[in-house]
């Protein structure tokens, strides 16, 4: 075991797969010699060469197309989109093309691609860097969306994503890159995609969440415990498809749910989680399912992040509403 930050765990996962499979290619804007704008690909080009880890021209759509074409030649591309706010440039390649490749070709062609991209607020980035746009991709059949919240999850999920023979969008929360260290095995391991993880067990109320909100939820759970409220925190880890089984199991135990996301209320995936619960477990509910989400405005100007982003206090408040319904 080693102590790693999430970004180190991500680099380690890519190094593992570059070593394991000669078809793995890592490319994007500044990922080569520079080692990535966040150092996620630090040292990889030096270790594996320019044929395996390389820079691209500055064009996200071209990067998406490049990945699809390389996938058609038997490679396993791991392209990077520098910030997920730039996904609009490459929406066709992701949702219009790679997500549909296996289906449209009746299984004769595939897109074994993992698109890595940072997102998330709290670090005062300029415009269109921090936006949570996972909801857009989660609506597209044919692509999985993975969002880790810990170094351990990040490594196991990224290795599993790279090995998956269908496209995966792997979103990395910028605030979690270096905010803490965690135990990460040095050897390779995978975490099954589509499986949630109970990060904290509890019996009074379930919080379903992902990304940076996992940590805000855990902090809220600690505070709530002092008031005698026992909170179970489920980290979805994969936001498409969601692990309804784990959610339902918890809901049937606690009978109360709050869904927490950093995205705006009209975005993200919280409403999908709520629909699944109400269809499958309405008779187990003691209270309506409430959401913690950002206001339905454009992502905040950086000085307004503190007042705009959902935090543990918002979560405590919503949990109390559900408890006192």
């Amino acid at each position, binding site marked *: 075991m080693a102590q790693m930050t999430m970004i180190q765990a991500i680099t380690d996962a890519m190094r593992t797969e570059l070593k394991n499979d000669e078809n793995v290619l890592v490319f994007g804007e500044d990922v080569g010699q520079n080692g990535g704008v966040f150092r996620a690909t630090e040292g990889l080009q030096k270790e594996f060469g320019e044929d395996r880890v390389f820079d691209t021209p500055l064009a996200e759509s071209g990067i998406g197309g490049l990945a699809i074409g390389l996938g*058609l*030649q038997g490679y396993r591309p791991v392209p990077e989109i520098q910030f997920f706010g730039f996904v609009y440039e490459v929406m066709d390649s992701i949702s219009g093309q790679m997500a549909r490749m296996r289906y*449209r070709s009746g299984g004769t062609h595939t897109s074994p691609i993992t698109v890595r991209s940072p997102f998330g607020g709290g670090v005062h980035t300029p415009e269109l860097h921090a936006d949570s746009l996972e909801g857009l991709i989660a609506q597209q059949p044919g692509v999985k969306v993975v969002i880790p919240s810990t170094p351990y999850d990040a490594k196991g999920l990224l290795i599993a994503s790279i090995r998956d023979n269908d496209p995966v969008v792997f979103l990395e929360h910028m605030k979690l890159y270096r905010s803490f260290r965690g135990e990460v095995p040095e050897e390779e391991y995978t975490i099954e995609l589509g499986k949630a993880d109970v990060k904290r067990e509890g019996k009074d109320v379930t919080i379903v969440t992902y990304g940076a909100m996992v940590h805000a939820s855990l902090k809220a759970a600690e505070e709530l415990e002092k008031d005698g409220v026992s909170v179970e925190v489920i980290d979805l880890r994969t936001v498409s498809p969601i692990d309804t089984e784990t959610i339902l199991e918890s809901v049937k135990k606690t009978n109360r749910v709050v869904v927490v996301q950093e995205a705006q209320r009209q975005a993200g995936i919280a409403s999908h989680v709520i629909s699944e619960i109400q269809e499958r477990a309405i008779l187990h509910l003691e209270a309506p399912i409430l959401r913690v989400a950002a206001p339905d405005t454009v992502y905040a100007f950086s000085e307004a992040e503190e007042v705009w982003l959902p935090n543990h206090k918002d979560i405590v408040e919503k949990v109390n509403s559900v408890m006192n319904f």
Partner: protein
Amino acid sequence: MKHVLESVESQFEMFQILNEDGKIVNKEDLPDLSDEELKELMKRMVYTRILDQRSIALNRQGRLGFYAPTAGQEASQLGSHFALEKEDFILPGYRDVPQLIWHGLPLYQAFLFSRGHFHGNQMPEGVHALSPQIIIGAQYVQAAGVGLGMKMRGKKAVAITYTGDGGTSQGDFYEGINFAGAYGANCIFVVQNNGFAISVPRDKQTAAKTLAQKAVAAGIEGIQVDGMDVLAVYAATKHARERAINGEGPMLLELMTYRYGPHTMAGDDPTRYRTSEMDSEWEKKDPLVRFRKYLEGKKLWSEEEENKVIEEAKEDIKNAIKEADKYPKQKVTDLMSNMFETLPGNLQEQMEEYKAKESK
């Protein structure tokens, strides 16, 4: 201030070998094709013209679905395809079904593509191609990736992709040729300039005098070719292929052509934007007419031979439509099983639902 437009445009004079009368006007670039190959090329063009006529008729009878007419573009589509090898990978646009057929896609599958059946898109083993791309420009960025993959694998093969004149206005068009240029990828980018993007004439797309000169923005070679001249199209594509497999990078080919029919069979009416004078002017340039004259002059082609090809085409088409009719109808469970290698939970659940429905 130095003005460069004129000097740029002068670099893109149209490349031609066979004129409208079927006479060789450029001996120097005459491709080295055997008599048999010349006849095969003519055969494919005649066959494809019949395929177009029959496809339009079958579409009108409701026996085909989506169809983008090809008549007029035989030299451009088949001359360029004839310069390829089996290991080359085709990324076609929606009008480029003929290239797929001559690359090995069975005719009945091309018809299933038209009707909207997934089996039409299942490339047989060893047929290196994607099914026709509907998103104009997407095939260009993907071709850059296929061509780079070939280069990295050390393959002596190319990725060839096609778009129209309207498609040159897309961002993906530019990104595709620029990426391929930056990586020196094994690519041939073909622009079939038929003068119109649905109803919008070519000069509404760009102020550039040629589309071939757009290659300059990517720093790659470009050439404008008489797209109604099958020998010129073949020679230019062959040249581009040789350059690419020798590591000299991608090339952009603008083929000047024309479609005699409407944009698609989905209700487009070309009389709204084209004059009959324009049609008849381009009919004089018909690639079949001039190549027929050339081959007849060489005593390589006769009416009998042509009729034989026409009969063969009609027979094949009849059989292919029958085969398409017989192919099993699609079920929702088929569509589900083509989504992922391993079905995620939501689809597993829906699979069970639809299996139950389908077994009723």
